[in-house]
């Protein structure tokens, strides 16, 4: 187990592994998203209150969930990098940030679009919405901190401290609907025992969430590959890769 772990953490090995993994993540992701979209847009019945407007849920909920998932991934990777000084983990954290920021922006935009018909306003200064906005700021803060240092080593470690400190925001977002009474929907699908949503509407949502997650992992693998190559630019294997040889031949 440990040897496998360390082997994975070696950059050339990871580069090769991730490369072969990417299609196995992205194609299923595409498939699931197509199925989920079909299920959500065609197969699921219109809501008796909201008509077809609710269908934006199939984008909103997966991106909202991923906005937080990605942050947690980023923080865990950053923590691993900081404690065990594994550069690969830093590369993972660095690659997470723009993806997470994109999902967060998507959650905000879809939420706002949904909010207009539902609440009569695009935006409401309400705990969940605000804390989601703050999550976006955290991503921005993380990225600007990274770009502010000239030394990679330094920006890795500094941004890791920030990512870890900012992780407190995630439970705040998740529980904000419970702690403060706001406009936003309470948990409806995450109550596993008794989902308060019809199965016809639920399964496309679950498929979409899975599809989005795989999509995230696929994009992450791609980004980390690029990041690792850039970091190991001067090493022999990276030079070999850039010249077109396979990294395994380079050893």
């Amino acid at each position, binding site marked *: 187990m440990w040897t496998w772990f360390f082997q994975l953490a070696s950059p050339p090995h990871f580069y090769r592994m991730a490369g072969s993994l990417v299609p196995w993540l992205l194609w299923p992701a595409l498939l699931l998203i197509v199925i989920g979209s079909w299920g959500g847009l065609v197969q699921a019945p219109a809501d008796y209150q909201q008509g077809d407007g609710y269908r934006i849920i199939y984008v909103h909920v997966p991106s909202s969930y991923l906005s937080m998932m990605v942050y947690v991934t980023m923080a865990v990777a950053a923590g691993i990098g900081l404690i065990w000084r594994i550069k690969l983990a830093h590369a993972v954290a660095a690659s997470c940030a723009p993806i997470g920021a994109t999902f967060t922006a998507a959650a905000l935009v879809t939420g706002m679009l949904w909010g207009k018909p539902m609440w009569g*306003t695009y935006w*409401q200064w309400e705990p969940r919405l*605000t804390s989601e*906005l*703050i999550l976006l*700021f955290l991503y*921005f803060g993380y990225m*600007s901190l990274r770009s*502010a240092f000239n030394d990679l080593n330094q920006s890795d470690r500094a941004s890791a401290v920030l990512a870890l400190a900012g992780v407190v925001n995630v439970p705040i977002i998740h529980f904000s609907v419970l702690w403060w009474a706001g406009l936003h929907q309470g948990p409806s699908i995450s109550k596993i025992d008794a989902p308060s949503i019809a199965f016809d509407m639920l399964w496309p949502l679950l498929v979409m969430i899975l599809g989005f997650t795989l999509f995230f992992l696929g994009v992450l693998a791609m980004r980390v590959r690029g990041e690792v190559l850039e970091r190991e630019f001067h090493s022999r294997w990276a030079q070999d890769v850039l010249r077109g040889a396979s990294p395994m031949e380079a050893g």
Partner: protein
Amino acid sequence: MNLGLGNLFWVVLQRDLLVAMRRWSDICNPVIFFVLVVALFPLALNPRAEFLRALAPGVLWIAALLAALLSLNQLFRADIEDGTMEQLLTLPYPLGLVILAKTLAHWLVTGLPVVVVAPLLAITYHLPADAIGILLLSLLIGTPTLSLLGSIGAALTAGLRQSGVLLALMVGPLMLPVLMLGARATDIALSGDDPTGPLYLLGALLALALSLAPPAAAMAIRISAD
């Protein structure tokens, strides 16, 4: 030294913009700070729509002023610390023009983004469309005045360490009329009246600042670079 004055202006402006682009956080940060301040109020206070609407002109303008104050701190500081200012001071060119170019670059990088996002935030404060228009206009006229006024304070405090708050203290009072007029204009528009009066006054202040601030800042910078 065959550089025309327009050219000098352009060379300095271009360099400052390039430096800012290298640190893109320079461009994002003041505006994000602006958003942060505006977002804090509904959290700390009661977020009812009519309450927020009444708050909006004041909060948006105060946030714009604070964002300007915070970023002004850096206007000449780096130049003094790394010795660039010594070079600019010994140039055979009018220093006021150099300062004007630097101030313009600063406004483009920090003030303009604030002006651009302000309408979006105004929507979240439930401000009606015509009041948003006036808010935008008042910020567009008012924030360059803030930058110009700030340049004097920034020049005076550039050699000091703990200048952030000192700067706020010095130029805050100077910026007050701009703040009051800007918030006033939006407020008037909000209540459906004609806001041209305060807007003209804002324009007059801009003209005044444009002609007086650069030479004053030039004199100040000579003193603090000694």
